């Protein structure tokens, strides 16, 4: 490690981790009706937010740490979700509407036998492997081409957005045999467990919480290695990095791959908890929303994306119930306000307030006739 960890930061993190893992315990053991009880609904909702937080970290490691504003993280999140979805579809068995052994939408399309590429998804380990393999290959190919051609800045953002949109259109087609615009839904079982059972949802929450913790710790470790230094140097001064003998494109490709895998795992955990996956998850506004979470929480920190993802989505849940038509308007306003007045997001807010207070007290102290030490105090400001 190159940079030492701050001690006060670790306190807050430990507290956050305790709360994170206390939730399912309270859901399972606190009596219903007690103020300590966490409802099944909340566990499911927060489990979903944790998946968004994983996605947000992947956006921030690219954007805040490497200077690559990728609008394609929703693609990898969705691909991971689809790989899991394919397995879940196979586990419905004959419990679908048509009571056939193949998924309902295939029956609807006139298929009688399972297409060959669907067959291995009967196996959970295979689906898990594909969660890593498919986004891994897509990100390596796209990243290699983009970084080799020195595509950066806004061009990189536009290209990743275009890639995601192209995938979105592709998945909308019924002929891809991936469920068309309805996607996959009506899941029943995962690893032999009933998905609607509170215990299963609790385990899924727990899996999301553990994954988020591992992802967080891995990215924190990474940011403190020499790799992390090079990565952040690329963000701040790429030409200097090149002229210091580092192949910046190799470093960017590694980060792009890593973040694709992180997003994909997030998507994999997301699908069994929300019970549906369809191409609208790849629509342009989804990638942009993840960027807003990061901006609101605090770009260039690792706790920021988590706070942003959970915070903005909690706000979204409430807004879409209270003012159903206003959500995108509120999201846009929030983004503008944060960009203008809170450049470091929620994470930077305490520092901003502290600076504001210091300025206020400094101004207040000028009022009495200035003596030497007080004048010095003003000078510091």
């Amino acid at each position, binding site marked *: *490690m*190159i940079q030492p960890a701050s001690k006060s930061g670790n306190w807050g993190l430990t507290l956050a981790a305790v709360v994170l893992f206390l939730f399912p315990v309270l859901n399972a053991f606190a009596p219903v009706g007690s103020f300590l009880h966490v409802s099944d609904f909340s566990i499911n909702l927060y489990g979903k937010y944790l998946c968004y937080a994983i996605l947000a970290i992947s956006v921030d490691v690219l954007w805040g740490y490497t200077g690559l504003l990728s609008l394609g993280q929703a693609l990898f999140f969705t691909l991971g979700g689809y790989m899991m979805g394919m397995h879940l579809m196979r586990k419905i068995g004959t419990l679908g509407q048509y009571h056939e052994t193949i998924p309902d939408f295939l029956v609807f399309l006139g298929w009688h036998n399972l297409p060959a590429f669907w067959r291995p998804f009967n196996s959970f380990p295979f689906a898990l492997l594909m969660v890593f393999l498919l986004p891994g290959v897509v990100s390596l190919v796209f990243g290699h081409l983009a970084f080799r051609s020195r595509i950066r800045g806004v061009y990189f953002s536009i290209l990743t957005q275009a890639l995601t949109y192209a995938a979105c259109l592709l998945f909308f087609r019924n002929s891809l045999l991936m469920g068309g615009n309805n996607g996959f839904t009506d899941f029943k079982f995962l690893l032999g467990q009933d998905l609607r059972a509170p215990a299963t949802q609790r385990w899924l929450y727990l899996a999301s919480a553990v994954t988020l913790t591992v992802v967080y710790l891995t990215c924190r470790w*990474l940011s403190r*290695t*020499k*790799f992390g*230094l*090079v990565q*952040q*140097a690329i*963000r*701040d*001064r790429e*030409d*200097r*990095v*090149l*002229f*210091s*003998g*580092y*192949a*910046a494109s*190799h*470093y960017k490709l*590694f980060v792009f791959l890593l973040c694709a895998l992180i997003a994909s795992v997030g998507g994999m955990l997301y699908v069994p908890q929300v019970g549906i996956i369809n191409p609208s998850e790849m629509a342009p506004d989804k990638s942009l929303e993840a960027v807003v979470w990061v901006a609101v929480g605090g770009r260039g920190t690792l706790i920021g994306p988590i706070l942003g993802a959970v915070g903005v989505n909690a706000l979204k849940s409430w807004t879409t119930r209270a003012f159903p038509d206003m959500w995108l308007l509120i999201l846009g306003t929030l983004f503008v306000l944060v960009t203008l007045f809170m450049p470091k997001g929620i994470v930077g807010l305490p520092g901003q307030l502290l600076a504001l207070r210091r300025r206020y007290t400094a101004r207040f102290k000028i009022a009495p006739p200035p003596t030497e030490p007080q004048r010095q105090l003003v000078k510091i400001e």
Partner: protein
Amino acid sequence: MTEAHKEFILMLEDVNKTFDGFKAISNLNFYMDAGELRVIIGPNGAGKSSMLDLITGRTRPDTGRIEYGKDTDLTRLNEYQINRLGIGRKFQTPSVYVEHTVFENILLSLPGTRSVWEALFSRVTPAQKERIGQVLDIVGLGGKAQARAGSLAHGQKQWLEIGMLLAQDPKLLLVDEPAAGMTDEETVKTGELLLTLAGKHSIIVIEHDMTFVRQIARKVTVLHQGSVLFEGTVDEVQNNERVIEVYLGRKKKENN
């Protein structure tokens, strides 16, 4: 011919480069001995920085040869490959990693592996720490190791970048206007530093400040419209009719 060229550390022959119809470099021929400290001067747009871009792989020449050492063709390599051969560059505006500490800026410049895998698991060795300390002492930033590079004054950033170049320990240093934005005193110190480096390293300095040129230069190359107009000592350059006409002369007219 090859016999004579063995001594050259850098050779540009018949190099041409056009940007959007503007001929930045035109039939440029430039030879430099190992261990030499060469100063390149020339009016704005003479092609000085373009020449460094061509040498360091940032741009490729349309035609011509650029060779380093015995027979390494630089026109086929990119920036980081050229840097790994031992060619270091300091930019005109200080280019340091502003969010990193001064210590980290030097650390990333130390020689050693550049691979992704090694970067994940490498640790700072005591030898590296010691070397960073030495470099920071040379450039007068010894007390600033833990300061954020972005918080340094302009002149200090210039020094930090020079330090990063020193840490790389390149065979050939390309230094673009090192004295820009420095105080007179800092400029003199920069000159002294460059003079101590000459001999062990080969150095190309691009500079506008004639006092500074006078302080460090043995041999001066004057560029004009993308090719070499004249080469010689500072005195020869300042007394050369053509140089006075295109460069110094024009400056006099401007001053009047």
